[in-house]
């Protein structure tokens, strides 16, 4: 069977990024880093038209989970493509772009944009969690 994430590998090469594969009996997976931050892409064997690009982060200590949920909700209303969710007993935050595609070739020309949206959403999430910090 064709590898549904092969076009994603090509998109990563277009972006000048290294990647690794970690497929198993359930899913195809690609992991990569950009500017030191970790990302993943997943497609399921029983649902190859679904593709998810995402990144996960630990919440900083001392953050009130209700504040984090509030920021996530506001981002979910405003942001195109990206879903922001608290998980793992609300100690982590996950940013994902979930798409339904004929093939992941359709994603390739937009991959840079989707990566930027993921990156910007994570940056905004953490900025809004600490509105009183002085600028760097």
């Amino acid at each position, binding site marked *: 069977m064709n590898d549904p994430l092969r076009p994603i590998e090509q998109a990563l090469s277009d972006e000048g990024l290294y990647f690794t594969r970690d497929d198993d009996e359930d899913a195809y997976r690609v992991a990569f880093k950009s500017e030191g931050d970790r990302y993943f892409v997943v497609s399921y064997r029983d649902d190859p038209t679904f593709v998810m690009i995402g990144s996960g982060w630990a919440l900083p200590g001392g953050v009130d989970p209700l504040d984090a949920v509030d920021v996530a909700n506001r981002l979910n209303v405003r942001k195109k493509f990206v879903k922001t969710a608290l998980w793992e007993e609300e100690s982590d935050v996950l940013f994902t772009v979930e798409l339904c595609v004929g093939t992941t070739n359709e994603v390739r020309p937009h991959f840079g944009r989707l990566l*930027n949206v993921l990156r910007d959403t994570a940056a905004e999430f953490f900025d809004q969690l600490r509105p009183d910090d002085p600028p760097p």
Partner: protein
Amino acid sequence: MPSARELIKSFIESEGHKVDAAPPDDAGVSELLFRTRGQVFSVTTTEDDEAAFSISTAYEIPEWAREPGQNTEALERVHGRHPHVIFTLAHDGSLFVATLDEHAHSSQELINNFWSLVGRLRDAGSQAFEDIADRTESKVAAEKFINSFMMGGGQ
């Protein structure tokens, strides 16, 4: 002990990016090329001065906006807002290069601030590109002239 060039190359690769490394030239200057967020960046290191680095990136100017006089002024304005970034028009005004010269205490110091420096350069470069592509002032001047001419005020 690894050279600054090798340390920076290893760092960029460990952050997920492929690096194209040119060997040092006769003057000991070498260049590392990598891509991030769709833009190619160059890091230049010097063997004689392990603490001196520059990071550069180039922007192609759209053909319809290639007016060297006007673009030099735009780049000077943006340099005023980002004094650490030097802008240079190149290739007969078809592109400009934004360069951040950095004299760190060590390559480790550069590495610690690397993405922040790249971000500063990208922000300055994007602003310069936007200023060059923004012809609002020229358009306003042209519209004034046309309006004045249509009303019989043209000479």
